[in-house]
């Protein structure tokens, strides 16, 4: 990593190269570092996060949503719900943001080589898995079957719609998309039902398979028993915790779950690790 400052709170500067509205309030940004050296040397692993700043508003924590296999830029995806995210959303192509990172641990993708993968995501929690999905699709030969179960409340709430279409069209990916009952429009061609139910119907085989699950707490809560029923061991299930953070560096004291610091020990955990934590997340 390029160490251009001893100030651990100083962000790199990045230019918004592209932006895309995923839903009415969720936006994706593609960011290109302004410093040539940083652009060349910035590396990260799927699952790591960063602190993104809109100068004058402050910093927010999101995962790096693009794949480490796609170099020259990073992407993030956020919902405009507060001071910083509203400010980030008001920026345009060509504007500058700050980026600190990458921080935290990552998905042990090398350990997944030779295995089947099942991705289970809900709503705005697709970005932390999308980085892994593209990472794995870019190394497609190294993995067995790839299944993606993704759902949102309504059709309009699905993010990365164009990529869902792309995955759906591929013969080497099985995409199961769903919306909650009542969230389907007249032309909806996916499933209707909650993610855990749809996952159970899709019934991916657990043998030699790793499941990666990201979603709102309520979805995770009902998805883990389904995976268990399908035969997945707690060590074969990965998720990320998305606690509020400020420093991202293990110092500011707010992301801990018991003695686990999500910013340093996480954000990626196995279901076994999550179950061992105090249930306060």
């Amino acid at each position: 990593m390029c160490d251009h400052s001893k100030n651990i709170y100083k962000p790199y500067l990045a230019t918004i190269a592209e932006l895309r509205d995923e839903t009415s309030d969720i936006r994706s940004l593609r960011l290109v570092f302004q410093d040539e050296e940083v652009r060349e040397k910035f590396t990260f692993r799927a699952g790591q996060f960063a602190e993104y700043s809109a100068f004058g508003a402050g910093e927010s924590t999101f995962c790096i949503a693009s794949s480490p296999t796609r170099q020259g830029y990073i992407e993030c995806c956020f919902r405009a719900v507060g001071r910083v995210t509203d400010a980030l959303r008001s920026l345009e192509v060509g504007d500058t943001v700050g980026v600190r990172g990458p921080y935290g641990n990552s998905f042990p993708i090398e350990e997944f080589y030779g295995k089947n993968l099942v991705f289970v995501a809900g709503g705005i929690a697709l970005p932390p898995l999308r980085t892994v999905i593209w990472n794995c699709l870019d190394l497609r030969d190294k993995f067995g079957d790839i299944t993606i179960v993704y759902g949102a409340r309504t059709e309009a709430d699905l993010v990365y719609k164009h990529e869902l279409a792309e995955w759906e069209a591929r013969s080497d990916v099985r995409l199961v998309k769903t919306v909650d009952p009542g969230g389907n429009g007249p032309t909806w061609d996916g499933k209707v039902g909650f993610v855990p139910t749809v996952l159970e119907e899709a019934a991916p085989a657990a043998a030699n398979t790793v499941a990666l699950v990201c979603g709102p707490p309520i979805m995770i809560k009902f998805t883990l028993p389904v995976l268990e029923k399908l035969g997945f061991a707690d060590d074969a299930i990965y998720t990320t915790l998305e606690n509020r953070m400020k420093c991202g560096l293990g110092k500011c004291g707010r992301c801990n779950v018991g003695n686990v610091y999500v910013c340093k020990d996480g954000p990626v955990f196995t279901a076994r690790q999550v179950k061992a934590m105090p249930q306060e997340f």
Partner: protein
Amino acid sequence: MPKMITEQNLRALIDLLVKEGSRVVGPKAAGTMTLYEPLAAGEELVLTELPRRSAKEAFFPLCETILTYAKGEEGVQVNDIDPARFPETVLVAVRPCDAAAPGILDAVFSWDYDDQFYQERRKKTAIIGLACTKADDACFCTAVGLSPAETQGSDLFLTPLSGGGFRVEAVTEKGEKLLARYSQLFGEAGSAQPLPPAEPGGEKLELARIKAWLDANFESPLWQEIADRCAGCGACAFLCPACHCFDINDEGTEAKGARRKSWDACGFAKFTNHASGHNPRDAQNKRYRNRLMHKFKYYDDKFGKHLCTGCGRCVRACPVGIDIKAVLDEINSK
């Protein structure tokens, strides 16, 4: 031979240090309070009171600028803070409970990522500790393994003598250098006897036993009993020498401003509130539990130390009378 310094010469030492350009920070009258504040002259030093806030702000200020930014013709410019601007500092008449705190906080500010704001100030600061000969009902340093005569954390350590003045002990190399450099102000202690150290009352705590209880009692009715009273005001955290939680915020406009790091408190309701509205610590009992667990379990799990020096400030200041020592006594007796 042990050294001594008269009170007059201690004040003269401060004058000399100030004249030489050092920042000297010590207990000083500030309105109705005594605070650790920069001293302009030795005569400002207050030797009788425990300052209202701890000495941690000498390393970790209540609010500090970590960068500035400005938007110009050629984009955004981010300006670093030059650590060279942190002055050489001498902390004078620091009570043992305050002098011990930086040695505890070093761990969190340096693991993996070095917080240069804290560390540079640490490097550039010498601590002259002062033994306590008086304790009040809230003091409990002896219960957490320290003492009114504890030299750990100080570079030079002063103990009041019965006939006036202080016995001087060099605890570290930094302290020895101070002693050598200003040798003209120090004399031989001779047969002068130090005053006996203060004797804080209360039972000694078995911290390992408390830790074992905390390990097993994340769920306990105790948390709700305490939280029924806690107002979530955060006074305990702001006065604590060892609390280190902070927030990072921008002050200014899109065009120009500063990013600042400011003290925060895990007792505040919004401390852990997610953007979605979900809050992992959504009730005061969970927040108080985190405070106590962080101090006596989590920090110990991570760094082998506990985040409390027994200064008693949180006990004195709590508007609803929550006494952490009484809570610890209760856990100790379980």
